[in-house]
């Protein structure tokens, strides 16, 4: 990013002879303002170019990570389910199933910083402060045993960090290493003595099954009818527009929660019928200690409690696993609750 200001100055003098860059212009578009470039040009390169001034320590990072990242990446960055593991996997790259983490695989720390800064947390990208990003990255280094717990990462010491697999990459060498694939005259006859089937996909059987088939409609139709009747009564009191607005707001939740028919527990519990339900009562979901404690005290997800929780999750429930910053607008809150209420059981 900003190092190019210098480069641009040089470019102007070069431009007189550098014809290709300055072919016929149509004069379309407008000059980008410095504030606009600053808002979008956030990428950070391996040499630290683009890194803003700031710092953060491991312990602060641990707390932030627990709040904002652990729901998917695990408390120790070990990963939850299919979500990416960020720590561990040392010396596994030549194994049958390599574990590719920041510590075991990623070549540059700038990549981690840049990605956390611009694209994380999942569903709430670009909500972290600069120092928070430093702290989280410091914690990721710590969880990979690359720094001690009193470590402070800053723009000043950033380039000192060399990740273990920095030298683990080569530039595409297919043209040389696979030059024998360019043989132009492939065999046409008697290419093998015998052919045996050595593996079958049916044996593994991991192909997705087709769900409802067109050939069996009767039974399911009845069920659907009953469901519709129930839903209509429940929804009667709800404002359809508000429900629709709530469905849009729910996009923020979708990364972790499912709702409606066939909903399952994902990173967060399924939310069908949540309004009016006792907290912590979805079967098969592993709730935080904080939530279970409030459940024992009789917490019910009525509209008031949901509203307070969704406005400021961490204020309402210190220690919640839900890595969501909260809904700032009142209209979003009433819309989401209307939408949740419209999805009864």
């Amino acid at each position, binding site marked *: 990013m900003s190092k190019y200001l210098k480069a641009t100055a040089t470019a102007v003098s070069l431009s007189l002879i550098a014809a290709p*860059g300055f072919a016929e*212009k149509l004069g379309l578009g407008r000059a980008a303002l410095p504030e606009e470039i600053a808002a979008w040009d956030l990428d950070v390169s391996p040499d630290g170019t683009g890194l803003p001034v700031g710092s953060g320590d491991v312990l602060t990072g641990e707390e932030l990570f627990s709040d904002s990242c652990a729901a998917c990446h695990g408390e120790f960055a070990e990963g939850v389910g299919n979500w990416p593991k960020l720590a561990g996997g040392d010396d596994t790259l030549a194994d049958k199933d390599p574990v590719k983490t920041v510590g075991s695989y990623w070549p540059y720390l700038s990549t981690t910083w*840049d990605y956390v800064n611009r694209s994380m947390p999942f569903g709430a990208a670009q909500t972290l402060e600069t120092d928070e990003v430093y702290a989280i990255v410091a914690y990721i280094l710590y969880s990979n045993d690359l720094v001690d717990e009193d470590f402070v990462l800053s723009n000043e010491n950033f380039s000192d960090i060399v990740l273990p697999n920095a030298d683990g990459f*080569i530039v595409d*060498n*297919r043209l040389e290493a696979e030059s024998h694939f360019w043989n132009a005259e492939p065999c046409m006859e008697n290419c093998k003595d015998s052919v045996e*089937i050595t593996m079958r996909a049916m044996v593994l059987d991991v192909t997705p099954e087709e769900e409802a088939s067109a050939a069996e409609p009767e039974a399911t139709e009845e069920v659907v009818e009953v469901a519709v009747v129930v839903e209509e009564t429940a929804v009667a009191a709800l404002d359809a527009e508000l429900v629709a607005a709530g469905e849009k707001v729910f996009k923020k939740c979708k990364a972790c929660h499912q709702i409606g028919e066939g909903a399952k527990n994902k990173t967060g519990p399924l939310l069908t019928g949540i309004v009016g339900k006792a907290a912590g009562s979805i079967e098969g979901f592993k709730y935080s200690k904080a939530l279970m404690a409030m459940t024992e005290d009789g917490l019910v997800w009525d509209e008031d409690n949901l509203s307070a929780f969704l406005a400021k999750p961490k204020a309402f429930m210190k220690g919640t696993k839900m890595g969501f910053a909260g809904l700032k607008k009142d209209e979003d809150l009433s819309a989401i609750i209307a939408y949740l209420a419209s999805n009864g059981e």
Partner: protein
Amino acid sequence: MSESFTSKPTSRRAFLRGTAAMAAGAVAAGSAKAATPDPLITEVQDWASGLGDGVDATPYGLPIEFESDVIRRNVEWLTADTISSINFTPIHALDGTITPQGCAFERHHSGAIELAKADYRLMINGMVETPLVFTYEDLERFPRENHVYFCECAANTGMEWAGAQLNGAQFTHGMIHNMEYTGIPLRTLLEEAGYDTAGTWVYVEGADASSNGRSIPMEKALDDVLVAFKANGEALRKEHGYPVRLVVPGWEGNMWVKWLRRIEVTDGPVESREETSKYTDVLEDGIARKWTWAMDAKSVVTSPSPQAPITHGHGPLVITGLAWSGRGAITRVDVSKDGGKTWETARLAKPGEKMALTRFYLDTEWSGEEMLLQSRAMDDTGYVQPTKAQLREVRGENSIYHNNCIQTWWVRETGEAENVEVS
């Protein structure tokens, strides 16, 4: 073959087995001579007497209900959720080469966003004379071009490295689509901003939360990269980057940044998350290849295949499939029915075009014999699609990406087909 066609199929595969059973019946009944007159011909049918839908019944038309199984499909166990995930084009059920947008595979990293043309901005900055901002309307005023290109995810066939895994061409080879794009050469925009010739790379990123940034060498950026806003004649679909995406012909789909919002001229690669921790190919010794951008020549028989079994009797059979190369044009496709012992050259529907899908046909006879069907593509650089064994010999089994091996379908006497590996 216990299920009959009238029993309730419990799964796609059961359905396929049912279809195959019907085919076996057809062998006996079906011949040049019909025993009884066909009521579909001898009786006046409703559609030949009454009226159909008026115009405007469907202002934007969708496929007829009978084609409702020609849809994208997801493999749920592959990713943690559907927001950051991929699904597959039903290539087993398509013909020709152009992929309809509505069933062309999707790959999102932070979900498919809704970005209106009025809210769209494209910035060019970095090593340029004048950093510029374009609106969508601005883009429409630049001279534009039309090109047909395939877009293949680098992970296409990635689940098959360690062995035959997924039973269907859609799942093994469906991370691909092929569309006619309308757009502006990236070169035009770089020239408009006055790019510094000392800039050796461009970094491109999207407007979605993932941003999915990638570094592209300037040589490619100036060669054939398009900033596209139409596909198959109409606006891009939301899931393919509406209103504007990047088209990087022949190179891995991850570089085809959707919802393109920024192009930065730089003097080095950014080494973003997508080009370091992902989309790099681990070799057997643990060393990984990076910058493996080009998609090597590849082909697959789309029919018959596990989801498209032979349902007719013995006699004429059309074997068909797709071939493509990210390094140039397909020049030839060979087909083997015996697992690679002998090969015959298939007919190309049209001469191969650079970095676009090519349709091939082998018009043949089938008398119920088992087949181990394979196809082998060649491109105009002289590259011959390798076997899986040949690929493993160089790369091991951990690469995930860039698996362009020869695929084998085991076609049984019943017409059913299964994904297998052969010696």
